């Protein structure tokens, strides 16, 4: 049996590993590992060439579980993802051939290039971690994590992700351009042949599973849950938003907060944890009004506003 590692240590191992390829992105990596610890799906969004896929692959390779990569294209079919029943001639019955999603980490590359029909095939598996084909449920291995990447929607030949699907992603991350020094290091690393494929797993899947279990046990004060609910409620009332965060959003805030606290080696969640991940957890769940969209407002700014305007709780409640 592998020794029990605290989630903080696990995070350090993974983060160091990923950072050896993906330079200068500490915060991004931490958020990615947060999503892993919270067993929530991750959407990485940015312009091409900044390392979205690299992040997804690095994360997948650092963990010693199974991982699949699905390249989304317009002609990709749902069956390619979920799997299809194939007729077994010798045994004269249909046999289920699992698709790309049957792995611990699924890298769904350029997910918005798939047609809505194909994208929708991910809905069930992302929410329930099962695949139902021909009325037969097939469970995917745990932990199960979809790391999707997508180009900004303005680019041609893409299909916008349906809101229902967006809501299923725990976090959306933007990679951003590296600073100059980091970029130089990236180029040098590329020249030296350091890429995601060279990464070896640093933790086995059992360790990750236990870390996820421990994250679930991270202490959350009731006042903090109330704070999360207030944040979500504030987005629902915001004038610039047509739809605010769903309860799934506020649940996600706390779960991601637990995972984020764990990456810090803490056993309790603070307001700062929630505020740190609020942008990544909430922004993609918000739908701007037409006016706000025309005025060039960004859901991220709205989240910032809400964070600034919602009083940070300072009450000392009764303790159990």
């Amino acid at each position: 049996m592998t020794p029990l590692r605290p989630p903080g240590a696990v995070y350090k191992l993974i983060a160091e590993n990923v950072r050896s390829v993906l330079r200068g992105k500490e915060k991004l990596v931490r958020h990615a590992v947060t999503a892993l610890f919270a067993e929530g799906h991750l959407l990485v969004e940015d312009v091409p060439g900044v390392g979205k896929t690299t992040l997804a692959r690095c994360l997948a390779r650092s963990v010693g579980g199974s991982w699949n990569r699905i390249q989304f294209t317009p002609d990709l079919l749902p069956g390619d993802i979920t799997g299809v029943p194939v007729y077994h001639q010798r045994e004269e019955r249909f046999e289920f051939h699992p698709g790309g999603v049957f792995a611990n980490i699924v890298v769904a590359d350029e997910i918005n290039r798939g047609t809505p029909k194909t994208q929708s095939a991910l809905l069930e598996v992302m929410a329930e971690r099962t695949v139902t084909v021909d009325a037969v449920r097939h469970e995917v291995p745990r932990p199960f994590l979809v790391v999707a990447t997508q180009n900004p929607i303005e680019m041609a030949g893409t299909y916008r992700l349906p809101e229902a699907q967006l809501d299923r992603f725990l976090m959306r991350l933007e990679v951003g351009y590296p600073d100059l020094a980091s970029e130089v290091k990236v180029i040098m690393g590329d020249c030296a042949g350091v890429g995601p494929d060279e990464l070896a797993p640093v933790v086995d899947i059992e360790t990750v599973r236990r870390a996820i279990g421990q994250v679930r046990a991270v202490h959350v004060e009731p006042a903090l849950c109330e704070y999360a609910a207030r944040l979500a409620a504030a987005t629902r009332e915001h004038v610039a938003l047509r739809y605010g965060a769903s309860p799934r959003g506020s649940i996600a805030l706390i779960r991601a907060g637990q995972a984020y606290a764990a990456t810090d080696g803490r056993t309790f969640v603070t307001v700062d944890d929630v505020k740190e991940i609020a942008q990544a957890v909430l922004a993609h769940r918000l739908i701007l009004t037409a006016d706000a969209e025309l005025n060039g407002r960004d859901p991220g700014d709205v989240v910032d506003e809400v964070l600034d305007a919602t009083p940070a709780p300072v009450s000392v409640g009764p303790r159990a």
Partner: protein
Amino acid sequence: MNPQWTQRLVAALLLLATGLPGLLFAPVFGMGSLLLPLVTVLLVCFAVVEVCLRVAALRPWRPVLMLVLGLLALGELEFGPGLPDSAMLRGLLDGVTRSWQLTLQSTWPARADAELFLFVPLAVLFAAVLAVELSRLPAVALLPGLAVAGLSQAYVALSGPVATAAGLAYVVVAGTLLAVTRRRESRLVLLLPAVVLAVAVSAGVTALDQGVRPSLALEHAAAPVPPLRVDNPLDEVADRLTRPGEAVFRYTGTAGADRWRIAVLTEFDGVSWRANGDYLRLGATLGTATRHARITVPDGGGPWLPSQPLLATVAGADPLVDPATGTLLLPGRRGPVEYELGWREPAVAPEALLDAGIDASAVSGGVGQVPPGVAELARTATGGLRPSFRAALVLERYLAEHYRQATGPVLPTGSGWAQLSGFLFTTRAGTSEQFATAYVALARLTGIPARVAVGFRAPPGGPGPVTVHNGDSFAWPEVAVAGVGWVPLDPTGGASRGTAAAAGALARVTAQARDALPPSQHLRDPEVPADRDPVTGPSEPDTPWAGTLLGWLGIGVVSAFVLVVVAIPGRRAVRTARRRRRTGPAAVVAAWLEARDVLRAHDIVVSRGATARELAGRLPSTVDSSVAEGLEWLARLVDLTLWSPYGADDRTAAQAWSAVRAIRKGFTEASFRTRLRAAFDLGSLREPGLVTE
């Protein structure tokens, strides 16, 4: 600069800044008497500062040392050398408790007596101790000195160039102090507006100052000398006249005194006459003396001292004085008194006097219940003239011609209406007591302000020693004449009999006017000058409304200033104290709220949603790094308290408040302007909308 030298310089400047306001009392006591005690106090304070710099063990005792040594030095200086005894202690105690009041009871400029001025060096000493103890906050340390300045302005509001000079001197000292203690910014930026402000304020004070008396603010607050129970000298006139040979007092001096007054009686209720003077302690001088006399009053007799109306100086005695009448009072006199009296003579032209109107603004008492017939008599006696000096002279002549002086062993006494009716209608004979009181009553009935003076007629003789006897006892009326003042008359007719030759200018001029008075049948009213109403006299100058407005504006500005200076830091101190009283987890939260208010006061934007850790990460670069460290520390404690399952104990609370102290300390490095604004920031009082339930 070496920090020790900086401390010396700061202490020296602070002492100067508290000593300078002490000198603003100079118009009350004179510069000469104040300088030595003030310099002594400041030197002692500085010496203590110096010793404490050298001997670290004494440092905690610095305020006590300063206070004790300063008091000791003052005591030695004012109450003579020697070991401190009970007299010195009592003197110092009186300096704290009574001397300010005695000063208010004195005419100004006050005598340079330790009994009176001691409160000034004492105030400076207390202010200096406070200032030196507060020297870490130079702007606050200047406040005690300013309080002394405020006190001095309550006694005597400086105005004009003196005020400007004093303001500038203070600004230079305070500016240098602030320049020395500030670290980074350009140091002279504040000096220029301060100089402008000093000039503007002194100009404003000058504009507001009505220049009536130096004591602007406390004039009406002056505690009057407690009323005295003394015999009415008017009642003694007849008694004295029956024993004419007894010597009353002796004097040597210049000619010019035809009478010596001991009391002036203004109030008459129909029965008795009473003095109604506001007696003050006689200060250094009441004016310039042109005539002098040395007076010796033997043992016995009442508290009244012979005096002259336009009194200037009294040397050799410390009497109470009523500046309006020039009478002197030495309550509780024991034994003989010898003193040097200085007075001045009014300069009056004879022709101006005869046609002069009466001074309607002069304070004149009542006449009580007037018996029938008296009013008609008064009209007849003045020849039906309008109230004027001429009418007063006519009344004088009427009494002199129609009444005679009583003689014999039993002289009439009393001056109520009962006796006066007898004198006026029946006996037609009386002493100067009846003449004077009847004159005053009749004059008042015709509208001429008059009062009764009691004293002695000056016997002929001099300049050698002249002895005044009981036989010279005399009462006479005085009428208020516009442009001249109170003019003594003599309805007994004695004045025209000859002592006027040796008398002063006013008596001579009065005699000339008397001689120029036309016979009764040719009497007519004097011509009324076009610009003056003879009845009402010159009207009181109206207070310009702009002055009143400015006054109220000034009061408003001062109250606003006090509100800002006292209320904001005070309210904040109370809030902090209440927060400090909490315990356990609530104390940690309170510390965080306090830290947030500190940040807010220093212009750091703290949104409702902000947490300590966030703020630590985004402090402006101008803020000292220790603030961020303190915030980080506090953030850890707050997180532990609020969000961990472990909670907080009192140790955590103590640590949280230490973090707040660290944050405050970090801000002491901030610019002076920032700290000043932080100290008086109204916004810092607002309770932000927090979820505290």
